[in-house]
């Protein structure tokens, strides 16, 4: 049965509603008596708030309230965005919400927000992350408040250890909030024994998730006292915990409903919810906050800017020796967590090293609040490493793919994390691009063209999860989970349940339940949903199958072991005419006086072994040597996906990831002026790859089954973005004859590199 269900390309189950506009997003629902909120955003990057005058705003017809930090009934301490959704006394980035105007209409709220007057006392803005580390540097935040509970969001993406002890010798400013050290072996000796050692400093900017649907939340109190939070979020339970913590509410009084997502890419984990909830609780009326695009650019949580100093070496035969990294992560105002841990782990790549010294620094500045972005910290790490691997190959006159293949991590190899690697498809994906005809053409290209390759990987997250599979009286199945349907995971659940139970996939519906009624699932992120929630769905479907077999066994008087379920029919093995449909059995169960237990299964998973995914890319570019423009001609991505439950969705993730990587490579950067004011806060200034720029992307699906994954499947959403910028950088280096060490590779930067 499973062979005809698993691995068949089919449309996403949510596609018809999405393309016809029938999907109702968090901003669409009708709520009686709804008020509309508009934030007032800080115009200074670092300042003390002397006062906020809302009197003119309150005079605007329709304005109900002007709320400041003191008006929100928040009890949790700390400077995290849950505890401090409105700046209390100190503004720490331009765009930080400082007040909320709530009105009867969106227009009145906007008119009111414009009329709020904030009196600032300017403080020195800390904008340069490297300067911020120096002992004498001014602090990006002068008021100190800590809350040990605030680190909950970090574990969503990858449970990363914090390495070993800090180096006590290194004197740094109070802006350095976290230092990670991972050391093993003698790196200096490893470099000394190398035939070639290469190094460089790589820079990547703040990058915006650029989801279609801006951040939005609606909150209201039911007459019973239950708080309902209807929101665009990746994680309903994490949002429930954050709201309960901030407002000191019992968990059972907070019902979080994860509405259909209009894109998230890591950026939607309890950010605007405390604002809408705070206003709803303060005013005792339903409140909706829908960020405008420019507010979303300024006030949310993009990917960190990073500076990476990297040095690597190899023996004459290409065996990698030592790796030394110093990775500086700009956390902006985020005191709770940063990507210095994961990034300084991933900078070693899916390769074996004899010795390593990897350091990560999380540094506060007056820019944004850092947040997660598809494969947090990984594209930067791969950009640095894969650029230098090409330089190493050049120095040793080795083929770049052979160099990587020779050192690729295999199952059981102990990487820089210190633990043996699970099953990993690094070699398999490298072999696939090595065989690609495009790679063979790289030395015979016209002037101005170049081909580059790179690999990138993501370790894959873990979190226990549960699911329910219920057979309805018409013989169809309903799968219930609390995972936010992101990147098509619900469509994957339908296939898993259908195959595990014995139904056609179109007979399966998937419901995303809320925190009151649904089984537990963590946030949709970290490439873990299919691997963990999917495994729970599989077990729930198997459990339901046992129920249907038990009922059929009584009806047919045949032992359960001699029965099989296929396409909604239970049959005797070897005697197919002795059968009964799942629908008939369900009807016998689901009725007054029925004889059988409802055909319903519950399943859970607590995966302990990760399922990393590796993707290798080939990029073909043409550069205009006079203008510095880079044209993407062709892109190939080979990714190990474990098992492609639905190849159409898998290839969609691969294409989307590669396209986002093109944005990192050539277009995207959130830039501030020297005072910390955002310069690229609209799509007129912030470029994302569009249909005009993205070339044909060829997808090569490589299947190295994950032993613990449902049908061998694993999370594949993050890996495809990781190596794409590096592959494009290597292609540009091949075309230009010179390398760029900073992303994005804009025309002025390429032009400048060509002249230096």
């Amino acid at each position, binding site marked *: 049965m499973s062979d005809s269900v698993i691995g068949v390309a089919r449309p996403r189950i949510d596609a018809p509603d999405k393309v016809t506009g029938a999907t109702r997003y968090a901003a669409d629902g009708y709520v009686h008596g709804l008020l509309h909120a508009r934030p007032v955003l800080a115009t200074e990057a670092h300042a003390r708030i002397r006062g906020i005058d809302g009197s003119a705003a309150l005079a605007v017809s329709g304005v109900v309230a002007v709320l400041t930090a003191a008006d929100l009934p928040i009890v949790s301490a700390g400077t995290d965005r849950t505890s401090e959704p409105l700046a209390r006394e100190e503004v720490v980035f331009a765009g930080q919400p400082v007040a909320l105007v709530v009105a009867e209409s*969106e*227009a009145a709220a*906007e*008119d009111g927000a*414009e009329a709020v007057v904030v009196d600032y006392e300017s403080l020195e803005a800390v904008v340069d992350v490297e300067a911020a580390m120096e002992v004498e540097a001014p602090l990006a935040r002068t008021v100190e408040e800590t809350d040990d509970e605030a680190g909950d969001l970090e574990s969503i993406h990858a449970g990363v250890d914090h390495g070993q002890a800090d180096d006590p010798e290194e004197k740094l400013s109070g802006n350095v909030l976290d230092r990670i050290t991972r050391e093993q072996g003698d790196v200096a000796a490893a470099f000394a024994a190398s035939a070639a050692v290469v190094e460089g400093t790589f820079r990547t900017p703040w990058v915006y998730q650029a989801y279609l649907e801006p951040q939005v939340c609606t909150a209201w109190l039911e007459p019973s006292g239950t708080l309902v939070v209807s929101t665009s979020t990746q994680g309903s339970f994490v949002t429930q915990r954050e709201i309960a913590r901030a407002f000191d509410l019992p968990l059972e009084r907070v019902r979080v409903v994860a509405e259909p997502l209009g894109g998230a890419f890591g950026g939607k984990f309890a950010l605007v919810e405390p604002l809408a909830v705070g206003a709803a609780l303060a005013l005792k009326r339903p409140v909706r906050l829908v960020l*405008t*695009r*420019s507010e979303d650019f300024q006030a949310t949580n993009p990917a960190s800017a990073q500076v990476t100093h990297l040095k690597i070496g190899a023996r004459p035969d290409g065996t990698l020796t030592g790796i030394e990294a110093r990775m500086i992560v700009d956390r902006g105002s985020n005191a709770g967590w940063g990507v210095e841990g994961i990034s300084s782990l991933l900078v070693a790549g899916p390769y074996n090293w004899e010795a390593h010294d990897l350091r990560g620094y999380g540094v506060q500045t007056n820019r944004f609040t850092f947040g997660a972005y598809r494969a947090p910290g990984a594209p930067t790490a791969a950009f640095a490493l894969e650029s230098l691997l090409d330089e190493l190959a050049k120095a040793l006159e080795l083929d770049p793919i052979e160099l990587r293949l020779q050192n690729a991590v295999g199952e059981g190899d102990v990487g820089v994390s210190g633990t043996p690697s699970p099953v990993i498809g690094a070699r398999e994906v490298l072999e696939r691009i090595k065989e690609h005809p495009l790679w063979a053409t790289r030395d015979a290209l016209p002037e101005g063209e170049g081909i580059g390759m790179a690999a990138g990987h993501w370790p894959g997250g873990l979190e226990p999860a549960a699911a329910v599979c219920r057979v309805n009286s018409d013989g169809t199945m309903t799968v219930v989970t609390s995972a936010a349907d992101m990147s098509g995971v619900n469509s994957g659940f339908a296939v898993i349940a259908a195959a595990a139970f014995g139904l056609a996939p179109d007979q399966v519906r998937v419901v995303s339940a809320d925190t009151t009624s649904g089984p537990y699932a963590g946030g949709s992120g970290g490439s873990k949903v299919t691997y963990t929630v999917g495994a729970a769905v599989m077990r729930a479907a198997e459990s339901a199958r046992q129920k249907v077999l038990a009922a059929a066994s009584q009806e047919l008087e045949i032992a359960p072991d001699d029965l099989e379920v296929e396409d909604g029919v239970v049959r005797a093995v070897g005697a197919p005419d002795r059968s009964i449909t799942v629908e008939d059995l369900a009807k016998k169960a689901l009725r007054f006086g029925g004889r059988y237990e409802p055909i319903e299964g519950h399943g859970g998973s607590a995966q302990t072994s990760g399922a990393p995914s590796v993707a290798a890319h080939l990029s073909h570019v043409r550069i205009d040597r*006079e*203008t*510095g*423009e880079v044209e993407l001609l062709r892109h190939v991505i080979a990714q190990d996906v474990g098992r492609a439950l639905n190849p159409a969705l898998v290839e969609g993730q691969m294409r989307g990831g590669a396209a986002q990587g093109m944005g990192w490579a*050539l*277009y995207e950067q959130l*830039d501030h*002026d020297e005072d910390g004011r955002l*310069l*690229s806060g609209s*799509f*007129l*200034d*912030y*470029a*994302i790859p569009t249909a005009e*720029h993205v070339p044909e992307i060829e997808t090569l699906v490589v299947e190295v089954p994950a032993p613990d994954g449902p049908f061998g499947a694993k999370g594949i959403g993050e890996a495809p973005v990781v190596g794409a910028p590096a592959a494009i950088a290597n292609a540009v280096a091949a075309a230009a004859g010179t390398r760029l060490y900073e992303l994005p590779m*804009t*025309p*002025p930067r390429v*032009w*400048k590199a060509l002249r230096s």
Partner: protein
Amino acid sequence: MIPAPTRYARATDVDHALELLGEPDAKAIAGGQSLIPVMKLRVARPALVVDISRLELRGIEERADAVHIGPLTTWSELASTGLPAGLQAIPECARGIGDLQIRNLGTIGGSVVHADPASDMPAVLLALGARLAVRSADGVRELAVSDLLLGPFTTSLGAQELVTDVVVPVPSAGSGSAYASVEHPASGFALVGAAALAGPEGETVALTGVGATPFVLDGDPATAIRDAEIYGDRFASEEYRRELAGVLVERALARARNHAKGDR
């Protein structure tokens, strides 16, 4: 993203439009592709929006030695209408503006009077020596495009004046024109754009994106670019734009010369 409160009135003819524009802080709107975005950002907050989109100021007509382009003519119309030989730069430029939706609504008149220092078509009009007919209560005056553009988003138009005709002289036989640009990857506006006209009487080149207004280069282009005041910002430095100006002028001229030879 909601504009400040404003009133709206639709003009029935040019005289009516001029009368409506007499109100304080009134602003004419045609395709809305420049005005609406700045209104939504509340950078522009007119008290009255005068809709001139239904006025009969649309269409392309060749009369005597000139092509008359109604200011309400859209980019899509300019991109697809056959023009006399020598005016290749106009459709070439129009095809590269915005996206299809913008080209279906955006108008040549709206673009010129918006006076964005990086807009494309004004450079083409400058290179082609275009003139504008401007109506007011006092009658019609004519002025060169270069006399309209005073600075960024600033023109010499009075509050109660409307452009009613864009007059492009047909170049003499054996002429060709072209437009070349490098765009900002987000906005699509020109980091540098160069328009060129090449013909028996000589060559004219205009630049956009590099200064307070698009302008014509006097004399030898290379020298003029070297001496020009060039704007730079954090995305594209003055040095880069100056170099790019030289490259794009050469490319526009080369294509204009090819067009002149009848090579399309």
